[in-house]
């Protein structure tokens, strides 16, 4: 396991109250796999990703354990984490325009990833930046290296971001909603690029998204998060073919990738995700769940193995159910 997360909890203090946004979750990421964390906004998926790099908001307190290649990363001094960031763990963000500094040329910022760690000198780093732009298939990389972020297109900015994150050859890439700001065609290109780079550079990818379409495209394994907890975790194919947690099933139904019912209307999950500090008792999904019964509101479902996957649900969708949501 290249990355092991154990009992990770991220909480905030508000008005003297401890609010737990990520509630004691554990998972492993194997070397070379594409691991997807999926959930609605507020599910704690981004906080989980940021905590791995030690980039959670300052107000957050984090507990548990995160080991990367056998080394503890959680609550380590900043100087130590800085050596890991960029060098061993690369990050890309949702907003490629905002994530690039408007006052420096793109090439400079890619080079910074190398000079920051003292890996290369200035001139050498600049050459390497052009190479990286070429690697992410940006045409005329020499010219783009000298361009400012506002001078290049949105798709190219996202490619430049990827070049930046991978410049110092990290072995783990955390991508937080990397395709959210992009239109459908560019999104497809970007996922293709990520898969290609992952193969060529033998990367491990942790991809954080709310987009089931992305999952179908690239996932090896999936972690479904809801209200700070793990709903379901397991092999991507197993989950895609037969989602067992009602929440996963509902997510998939709402994304219309369920091939069984291509012509029907999309299902929306009723209600909204609960806010921090307003999590329901028992199973946190129960107020929105079509399968909820009495015990769901009282007893917190433990995580348990279920077929090929693990889930936290009292009444998983049965193997023979044709339509997961009809049966109440």
């Amino acid at each position, binding site marked *: 396991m290249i990355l092991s997360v154990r009992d990770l909890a991220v909480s905030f203090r508000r008005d003297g109250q401890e609010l737990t946004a990520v509630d004691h979750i554990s998972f492993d990421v194997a070397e070379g796999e594409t691991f997807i964390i999926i959930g609605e906004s507020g599910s704690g998926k981004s906080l989980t990703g940021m905590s791995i790099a030690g980039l959670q908001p300052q107000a957050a307190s984090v507990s548990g354990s995160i080991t990367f290649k056998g080394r503890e990363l959680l609550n380590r001094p900043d100087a130590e984490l800085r050596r890991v960031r960029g060098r061993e763990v690369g990050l890309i963000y949702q907003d490629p325009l905002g994530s690039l500094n408007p*006052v420096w040329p793109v090439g400079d910022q890619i080079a910074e990833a190398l000079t*920051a760690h003292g890996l290369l000198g200035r001139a050498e780093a600049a050459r390497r930046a052009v190479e990286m732009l070429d690697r992410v298939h940006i045409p005329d990389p020499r*010219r783009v290296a000298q361009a400012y972020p506002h001078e290049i297109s949105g798709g190219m900015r996202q490619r430049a971001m990827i070049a*930046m994150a991978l410049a110092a050859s990290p072995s783990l890439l955390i991508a937080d909603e990397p395709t959210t700001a992009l239109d459908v065609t560019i999104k497809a290109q970007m996922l293709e690029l990520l898969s290609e780079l992952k193969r060529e550079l033998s990367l491990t990818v942790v991809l954080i998204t709310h987009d089931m379409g992305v999952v179908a495209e690239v996932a090896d394994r999936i972690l479904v998060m809801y209200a700070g907890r793990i709903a379901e975790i397991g092999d991507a194919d197993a989950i895609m073919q037969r989602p067992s947690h009602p929440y996963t099933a509902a997510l998939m139904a709402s994304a219309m990738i369920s091939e069984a019912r291509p012509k029907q209307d999309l299902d929306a999950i009723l209600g909204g995700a609960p806010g921090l500090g307003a999590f329901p008792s028992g199973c946190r999904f129960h107020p929105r769940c079509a399968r909820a019964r009495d015990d769901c509101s009282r007893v917190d479902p433990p995580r348990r193995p279920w077929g090929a996957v693990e889930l936290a649900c009292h009444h998983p969708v049965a193997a023979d159910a044709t339509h997961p949501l009809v049966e109440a």
Partner: protein
Amino acid sequence: MSVLAEPPRRIPRPRGVLTPLALLIVAALAAFTMLPSLIAPYDPIALAMSDRLKPPSLEHLFGTDEGGRDIFSRVVHGTRYSLGVAIVIVFFSALFGVIYGAVSGMARGWVDNVLMRIVDLFFGFPALVLALAVAAAMGRGLDSVALSLAVIWWPGYARLVRGEVLRLRERPHVESARALGVSELTILRRHIIPFVTQEVNVRVTTDIGFALVAVTALSFLGLGANSPTPEWGLLIRDSRSYFGSAWWYLVFPGTMIMLTATAFSIIGDALASRRSA
């Protein structure tokens, strides 16, 4: 097909005659400061008792003072003192304030708290009273004026910059630099300070006008330059006894102070409206 997208539209400049006019005034002031002897027709110090208190004429544009000295020449030579000291005050205040505010904003936590309470302490004092006290304690002279005004001036920059740093450090591009393992110092230098300078430039330009008024005010109160230095505030102080008989003695130096302060204020406004979000 070009790889590069279209260049962004320029932010339109505010139109009008005020800004060009203000720039013209500042250009003239710059010339006064750098080459006073070339511009001033007379010696600003030497007495010529036969020409006492002459009204404005082609010979003496601004008239003459009680020592027969050409007031225009004194004003031109005085630019170096009045405006020069104002610029020095603002420059060093800004330099110190930017560093102080940047440290405070980057450090956050208790360091930030302590540093900002110190700033509050300076803000709590009535500014001019504090400056008066410092100047009085140090004795008369332009150097003590400069120091005393710098002491009350820097906290404004510290607070401005600290706020900007706190705002900017949450920007995605700072976050992504942090994710690359870039050190905090480099982040400050490359990813935060360039965005702070825009705000600071606006403030500096406007402040030069205010500082000029403050310098001349302290000189007027007798804490600044010594006679016969042709400092503007001092000219006005000396003119008081002759106001009834020689209006030009007060009016021309006073107008210079007003024009200069207004010009910097207009340029500051123009810069402010041009800055990007």
